[in-house]
């Protein structure tokens, strides 16, 4: 079947729509998901198609949204709860971490919790300090929860379906910077992707660039630029922060012997920290250079445009890091 070309927001919308048509137990809830058509328009037209029972506008009450979704999931529904942005999910940390991630364990399997928490993640447009987080590693810290963050339209489509169909709780984040980015999407309503499996998005032999979400696009751009200079960079998109595809990371590293880990968020206790530790513990004999981390500066995100731009890395920082270890 021919692929469709869709921006990521439309790929997400299609995945959610097809899943809701497939399974009556799925409902969505969140701030502005219905009448307003979704802040990021991922749920555009859903209220008209599915009605108020399955498309539920909520009050601005993230603790309630998070906990209510957990209870409904335990009781047999399949909620897709949207946090308008991941920043607001901080208010629901207890519901996500202490309840969604743990009810199965502390009751020793008595209940399932098949909830998906969707949230827009990332920065841009001078959103300022409290609205500019990319905090997936915080959530990935805790066992019991899966954390997924797609880097392109096809993955967004398949990974969201996978997350909805799985019986474990999933935090599913969507980079604001990718919503408009077009990409091919398979014309297959049962297109799913395995949990905890990443993908090599560009093959290479000199260095491995490891990332998730929007940072993958910086890595791909860096790889293209580096190729012009005869440097061959492999790009590993982990897709899932938990479970993390360490097999794929190690396989690539053992081939290239060098790695740069790239992420939008802070460096301190980061995705890069975990991946670097995993590599040195498991691939020490293959290391030819220190592992580099490319991240944002260690400051809250400022408003002023030049300062905001200065805060974040892009493909040029990736190229610079690669050249430092070659």
């Amino acid at each position: 079947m021919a692929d469709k070309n869709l921006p990521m927001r439309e790929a997400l919308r299609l995945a959610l729509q097809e899943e809701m048509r497939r399974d009556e137990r799925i409902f969505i809830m969140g701030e502005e998901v219905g009448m307003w058509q979704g802040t990021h328009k991922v749920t555009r037209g859903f209220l008209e198609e599915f009605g108020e029972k399955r498309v539920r506008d909520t009050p601005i009450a993230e603790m309630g949204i998070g906990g209510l979704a957990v209870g409904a999931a335990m009781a047999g529904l399949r909620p897709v709860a949207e946090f308008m942005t991941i920043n607001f999910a901080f208010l629901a940390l207890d519901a996500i971490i202490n309840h969604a991630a743990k009810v199965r364990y502390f009751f020793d399997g008595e209940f399932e919790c098949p909830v998906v928490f969707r949230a827009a993640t990332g920065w841009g447009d001078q959103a300022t300090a409290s609205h500019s987080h990319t905090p997936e590693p915080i959530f990935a810290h805790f066992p019991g929860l899966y954390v997924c963050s797609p880097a392109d339209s096809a993955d967004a489509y398949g990974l969201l379906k996978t997350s909805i169909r799985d019986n474990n709780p999933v935090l599913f984040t969507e980079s604001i910077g990718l919503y408009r980015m077009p990409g091919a999407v398979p014309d297959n309503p049962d297109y799913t992707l395995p949990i905890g499996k990443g993908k090599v998005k560009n093959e290479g032999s000199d260095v491995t660039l490891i990332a998730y979400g929007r940072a993958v696009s910086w890595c791909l751009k860096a790889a293209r630029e580096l190729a012009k200079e005869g440097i061959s960079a492999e790009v590993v998109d982990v897709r899932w922060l938990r479970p993390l595809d360490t097999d794929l990371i190690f396989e690539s590293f053992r081939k290239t012997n060098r790695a740069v880990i790239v992420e939008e968020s802070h460096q301190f206790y980061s995705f890069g920290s975990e991946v670097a530790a995993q590599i040195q513990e498991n691939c020490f004999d293959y290391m030819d250079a220190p592992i580099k981390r490319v991240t944002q500066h260690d400051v809250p995100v400022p408003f002023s445009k030049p300062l905001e731009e200065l805060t974040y890395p892009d493909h040029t920082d990736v190229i610079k890091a690669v050249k430092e270890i070659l």
Partner: protein
Amino acid sequence: MAKPTKEMLLDWYRQMTLIREFEETSHQLYFDKRITGVYMHLYSGHEAVAVGAMAHMEIGKDHIITAYRDHAQALIAGVDPNRIMAEMFGKKTGVSGGKGGSMHLASAAHNFWGGYAIVGGHLPLAAGIALEAQYNNTGAVVLSHVGDGATNNGYFHEALNFAGLWDLPVIWLIENNGYGMGTETERAAGNPLLHERAIGYDVKDFGRVDGQDVFKMYDVMGEAFEHCRNGGSALVEAITYRYRGHGVSDKQYDSRLAQELQDWKENKDPINILKKHLLEEYKTVNESDLQAIVDESRRIVDESVEYAENSPFPTTLEDLYSNVYTD
């Protein structure tokens, strides 16, 4: 509300004495260091609240959820006392395989959605369970216990707002025992008439009830169930008293309030109130009948302790790692 029958009253007496025996035995076991850990919250003194409320639950249809003071709800719901006690000991045969402990008892088979350890954390879960009942039109009602302390926390207010906004069939049963840990309700709540919090959320306010009197509990809860059965949320504030500290390790509490505690025990004990009623109302019920019920409760609890002590601990990595995720 139809008057409860003699058989019902005797069953309530059985439930209340079983809870009391279970809790006081657990207390002793804790101080004998046979039950370990730091968290265990006892229900002694509160018995009439849960017994009078849960008497209205339709078995296999309605739902019960509570916080960490959860032994009584498990016992009333019909969970095997042996497996409850084994959980207190952290044994593999416990209801939660030793992974939850005293605060995390649950049984899906009994529609007992468990005890939860974060103050207020279970309240939106209760609303979510009620949403499923409404979504699938099951006619079920969710009974959610909540302590007075939790009514000051954001979870309570967000959950009540959802319940009022969406007409979710959930009863919020506040157990106001006068203290959130060691802080008096009046020192924690802007308006200490906690039931009035229902009004702001269009949840039906059933006011305050004497939580020591199982008949009064039964009557008001019957009305609350009926209200929710027709679609909507209800709130009841039961005034009660706990005979032990907030948690079993809070020892100073008992001595600080010795006089107050003695007054409640002597004049407002829920088991005595029911016993007095049974003896006065029914000539066919005598002291020895009631003592036989206490003895049977004693026997069940003794047996549960024996079962728990003879059960194995979970010890393997397989035990440790099971049920983090589902396959």
